């Protein structure tokens, strides 16, 4: 196999595996902040128990996210050296900014968040949690910004001398606010929040099914359900479709590939499911007539550009883009009826807590949210092919000239083995934590809440050792 393909496979594997964890940390982080606020306001100890429990889960997710995240920063240089030389001026500075503004926040406050329960009063612990979660959101901001520059590059000029050829930043704000940045950021964040809310629903439903920690389980579901409903609806109706319109405007080939639209047409259909025959240049499946035109231009009769309108422009693997896109849309749309049904059962005299089949659905939903996020990321990345920087640099020209196929085979074997072990350990430990459930406060608290420092003054004026 050639080194280009191997490097693509390795990057896809490592990025996809990594990308399981950050959305969960972002989403669960938001839920932890909500739980912390509820505790500070109500002083009901059950919320404190939930904080202790979910912070542990957060630590586990965060650990795997950090461990696999370093790989991404290295891989631009190791496997995509020509790309790195080309984009260092622009892309590199956005990554460096992520380090300064986001990773230090997360890394700095993580210790306080994980160990804060017994060292900080509720408000200060909430503040530490907020800082970590804020850092996680900031990290998403910079990384989506950097990736958006690869999708819709702006604010740069190509410099040819001295060699190597490279993109040089001319306008920082234009590289930051590329046309795709804000729509993509909102879509990614809301998807992550959906996954976080789904994680709470899943574990809460599991406890109810097993009749464990029933009181905590009900509160977990009650706090997460409204968020899940709002996030899942808005992400399809508002943020997802806004992102689709961004793709229509900026990457029309990607849009046509996502829908397998070969001919430019008015009243363009949107498929629910289907298959693209790239040889025969046809797409077959179940479609809603005119829906794509409506989605793209708010007009069922609007013309949507098909793949025939781009002349000899290189195309991505169309069926693959079509399938991953429809996997995302299918799963994403499913969250709306799941959320609404669960909400109706909840409002109808709390029947949700006894409706076992619905609880089982909720247990499984979190896996679908992670799968949907992965499918969405694949749509964005595969849909951009054959470009690594859209319409500027081809992926095939971005590799490392001195890295051999054997090198990448060896590293790929290493990553496959390592990540398989990591995934098994992660699921094993996550399951063990969930089976153990939230512990009673007496088991986790070493100091009475009232004795913990809850203002900056308390923290920095204590005498002697701080713990």
């Amino acid at each position: 196999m050639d080194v280009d393909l191997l490097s693509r496979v390795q990057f896809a594997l490592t990025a996809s595996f990594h990308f399981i964890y950050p959305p969960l940390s972002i989403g669960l982080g938001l839920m932890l902040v909500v739980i912390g606020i509820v505790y500070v306001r109500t002083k009901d100890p059950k919320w404190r128990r939930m904080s202790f429990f979910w912070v542990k889960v957060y630590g586990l997710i965060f650990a795997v996210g950090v461990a696999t995240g370093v790989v991404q920063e290295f891989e631009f240089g190791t496997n995509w050296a020509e790309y790195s030389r080309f984009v260092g001026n622009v892309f590199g500075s956005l990554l460096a900014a992520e380090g300064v503004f986001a990773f230090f926040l997360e890394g700095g406050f993580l210790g306080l968040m994980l160990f804060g329960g017994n060292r900080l009063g509720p408000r200060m612990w909430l503040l530490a949690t907020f800082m970590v979660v804020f850092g996680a959101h900031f990290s998403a901001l910079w990384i989506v910004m950097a990736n958006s520059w690869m999708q819709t590059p702006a604010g740069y000029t190509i410099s040819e001398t001295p060699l190597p050829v490279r993109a040089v930043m001319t306008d920082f704000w234009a590289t930051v606010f590329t046309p795709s940045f804000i729509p993509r950021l909102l879509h990614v964040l809301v998807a992550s929040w959906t996954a976080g809310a789904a994680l709470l629903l899943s574990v809460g439903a599991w406890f109810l099914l097993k009749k464990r920690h029933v009181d905590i389980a009900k509160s977990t579901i009650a706090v997460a359900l409204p968020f899940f409903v709002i996030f899942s609806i808005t992400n399809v109706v508002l943020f997802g479709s806004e992102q689709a319109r961004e793709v229509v405007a900026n990457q029309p080939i990607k849009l046509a590939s996502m829908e397998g639209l070969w001919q430019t047409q008015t009243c363009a259909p949107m498929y629910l499911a289907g298959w693209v025959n790239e040889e025969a240049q046809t797409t077959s499946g179940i479609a809603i007539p005119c829906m794509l035109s409506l989605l793209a231009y708010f007009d069922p009769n609007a013309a949507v550009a098909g793949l025939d309108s781009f002349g000899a422009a290189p195309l991505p693997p169309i069926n693959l883009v079509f399938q991953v896109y429809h996997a995302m849309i299918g799963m994403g749309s499913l969250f709306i009826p799941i959320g609404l049904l669960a909400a109706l059962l909840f409002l109808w005299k709390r029947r949700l807590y006894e409706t076992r089949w619905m609880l089982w659905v909720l247990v499984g939903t979190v896996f679908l949210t992670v799968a949907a996020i992965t499918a969405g990321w694949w749509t964005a990345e595969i849909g951009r092919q054959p470009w690594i920087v859209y319409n500027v640099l081809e992926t095939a020209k971005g590799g490392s000239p001195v890295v051999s196929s054997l090198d990448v085979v060896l590293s790929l074997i290493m990553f496959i083995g390592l990540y398989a072990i990591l995934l098994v350990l992660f699921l094993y430990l996550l399951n063990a934590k969930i089976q153990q459930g939230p512990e009673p406060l007496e088991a986790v608290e070493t100091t009475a809440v009232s004795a913990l420092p809850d203002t900056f003054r308390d923290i920095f004026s204590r005498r002697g050792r701080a713990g």
Partner: protein
Amino acid sequence: MNLSDIWFLLFIVIIAGYLILDGFDMGVGILHLPLARSDEERRVFLNSIGPVWDGNEVWLILGGGVLFAAFPLVYASLFSGFYLAMMLVLLVMILRTVAIEFRSKRSSSRWRTGWDAVFGLSSLGLALLLGVAFGNVLKGVPLGADGNIRMSLIDMLGPIPLLVGVTTVAMFAMHGSIFLSMKTEGALQARIASWMPRLMAVFFALNTVLIVALAAFHPSITDRYTQHPWLAVFPAAALAAILTAWYLLRRGRAFWAFVASSAMIALLLASGAVGIFPNLIISTVAGADNLTIYNAASADNTLTVMLIIALIGMPFVLLYTAGVYYFFRGKTVVEPHGY
């Protein structure tokens, strides 16, 4: 001083921050197997670095990001040229992270002993690999006119790089032992204290051999020093710093000894950095191919933007990092829900 010089200085400061901070927690890992005997003692070791190690590692991530942004040609050449070594770095970094985080999650002694071994060996391996990589940068690499380094993993394992690797391990072990002596009490602290002079002596001996070997076999570095004799203040100050650390330890002032040890690490790095300046990667093929802080730098616009970002962000980073260290100061106490 132009923007390239400023970014070279900042890059060295960031790497020094990384070596000082992650250096002590790597040192704790290196000493984890030989020095911490019971489960209780191992938990003390892990909890001493528990709240801060992740933040420490961010300095390396930042260093990588800054290299990518400020000197992209060096980032690309170094990371692709050292491909398999970099993959090994990633392997040990991942293993180290999960060992620290997973060990406490189960109480079975087999589980814990297994992760103890992973933590110890991965810390040792990371220190060794970073040292070997830095050793290759010091002595120069086969960098061609196309800006690419062509060398295999075996080529990287020359005597000088290996010596730098072993010296780095000894340096972090020493640095970590001083950190641990601040964090421990009683019999454990006494055991660490009995090891400290030996670790210092081993490091001092290795480092002396290294300096002699560099002077003898890689005159390009010595040339810089003979042309600019005043540069000798850096190694001289490093020597003064380690002697100060020795003296302070004998007086029982562990915190100030740790400060002196940190200063020594920064000064040693600075000694190496001024030795290769203005080169970042020295070509053993042809001197004209060297990647310098000038020909490998990003355009001024990027460097300016980055400088603004650093000036806005880094004061906050330093402020809250110091706050977190202050908060977790004092002896480490093992809690039921710690590491």
